[in-house]
């Protein structure tokens, strides 16, 4: 029953114990070279939004400021995602190395790991790794220190500007953009904020060179990606795979043989039904053939015994609770979508009411202030359009 279509990679979790060597090698390079390497590698943010990492570092480096910050976003709250927890517990030195090099490049002296409250149990081990790393930095004469900031159970704080607000002692409410974090981030100072996995990937790039990383994956999506696989699968867990696979290949490898849908990218991602498995490619939107999906790595598999109404209901419950309530489209929209599907299910509203809800979701996509409200339409529309009959009967 062993059927491996997809190549498993082992870059991120390989523990090579050569931090000192890698760090010394990279720090010997000029800042421009390091940024160029990152740009050549094609590394994009692994939190889901996919902003080019090299460019982010470059923009922050170019800002004039007496204070700058490097923040590792470990507020991994997207349903179905658990890779960052594993990376932080298995290879924290890779994340810290990425942060330290970023600090040198941008001129930051202070770094933070914003760790979600749900992962507080990781703190003792993480503090040990940080202490050892600080000792290493002292021998390399790099003036940079990292501390852990613990969140308190708010999904929205994974949104970068809400995360800054939270660190500043405020409610985790997203800010207007621009200005972007590279210009005004934490304490209104230029800030690089990268996902845990993104920082860990920089280690591989420093070690093996940008070309090797670039050669992995397809067209606009280079490198490997850590996927969190859960739901109806005999082998749930964390897998490092190459970008550019079709969903069909993924399902062949991971599902239980009866998959009817895969939710790619968590509650804020897209639901792909069986008939589209063959044509859907996992990667950032680019010049791929057929539709492609960006993803923070959450892959939830549902087999034919599952009610997609229940799945959508669960997602909407989640959004209703986690909406920060700041902007009306998201605060009211999430509640109305939930009430709406309940009313259709009970027969209190005609099935055509679903079309009104779909247009409400599209309005949220355009008018909500941040990614949370805007992306509710992703799962809502893809589930309602593909499983309409399950919403009604």
């Amino acid at each position, binding site marked *: 029953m062993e059927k491996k279509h997809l190549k498993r990679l082992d870059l991120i979790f390989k523990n090579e114990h050569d931090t000192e060597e890698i760090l010394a090698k990279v720090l010997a390079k000029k800042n421009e070279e390091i940024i160029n390497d990152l740009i050549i590698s094609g590394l994009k943010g692994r939190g889901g939004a996919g902003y080019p990492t090299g460019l982010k570092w470059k923009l922050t480096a170019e800002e004039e400021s007496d204070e700058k910050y490097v923040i590792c976003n470990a507020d991994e709250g997207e349903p*179905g995602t658990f890779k960052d927890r594993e990376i932080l517990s298995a290879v924290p030195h890779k994340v810290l190395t990425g942060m330290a090099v970023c600090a040198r490049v941008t001129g930051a002296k202070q770094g933070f790991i914003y760790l979600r409250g*749900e992962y507080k149990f990781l703190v003792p081990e993480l503090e040990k790794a940080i202490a050892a790393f600080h000792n290493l930095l002292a021998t390399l004469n790099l003036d940079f220190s990292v501390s852990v900031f*613990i969140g*308190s159970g708010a999904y929205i704080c994974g949104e970068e500007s809400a995360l800054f607000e939270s660190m500043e*002692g405020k409610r985790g409410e997203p800010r207007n953009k621009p200005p972007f974090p590279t210009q005004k981030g934490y304490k209104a100072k230029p800030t690089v904020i990268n996902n845990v996995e993104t920082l860990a990937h920089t280690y591989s790039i420093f070690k093996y060179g940008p070309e090797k990383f670039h050669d992995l994956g397809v067209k606009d999506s280079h490198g490997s990606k850590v996927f969190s696989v859960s739901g109806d699968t005999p082998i749930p867990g964390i897998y490092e795979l190459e970008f550019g696979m079709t969903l069909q290949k993924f399902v062949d490898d991971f599902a239980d043989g009866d998959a009817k849908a895969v939710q790619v990218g968590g509650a804020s991602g897209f639901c792909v039904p069986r008939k589209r498995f063959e044509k859907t490619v996992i990667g950032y939107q680019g010049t791929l053939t057929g539709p492609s999906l960006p993803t923070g790595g959450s892959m939830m598999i549902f087999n034919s015994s599952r009610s997609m109404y229940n799945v959508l209901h669960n997602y909407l419950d989640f959004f209703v609770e*986690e909406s*920060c309530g700041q902007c009306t489209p998201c605060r009211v929209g999430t509640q109305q979508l939930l009430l709406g599907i309940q009313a259709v299910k009970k027969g209190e509203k005609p099935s055509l009411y679903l079309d009104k809800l779909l247009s409400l979701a599209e309005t949220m996509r355009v008018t909500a202030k941040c990614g949370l409200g805007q992306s509710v339409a992703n799962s809502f529309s893809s589930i309602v359009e593909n499983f309409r009959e399950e919403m009604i009967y």
Partner: protein
Amino acid sequence: MNDLRNLVSTLVDKHGRDEESLLPILQGIENSESYVSQEAMVEIAKELNISAAQVYGTATFYSFLSIQPLGKYVIRVCKTITCSMHGKNQVISELENMLKIKLGETTSDKRFSLLETNCLGQCHKGPAMLINDEPYTDLTPEKVREIIRDIQQKEFAVN
């Protein structure tokens, strides 16, 4: 009240008087007191020289900060989809039966609170729950009974 004042001033000394210290201070209060009382909020506001309304605003935003007293052991069961699919409801019924409280309630001896929470990031090992900061995964009703019994026995031994 004096105890509370001492606690706040210890936390303020530890974390500093900047606004950036507010969340760590609130977390410290929550850890010691099981909730953030209005008295604590006023005290923190004085120490940090910000309005009590701002402290209240922050304290009520985060799901891991409570403004009602909770038990010594706060149980948070993950209710997100994959944990739900793998038997979250049985886990909750078992907890309700053992602790003789409903979801959202605290036992009369103030030992246990039973809450639901959003994704704990343990989806591959669902159903999952946190008891205070500690995660428990791959739960079954049997396993839940053992975990709770262990805590109850430990508590009984202490008293």
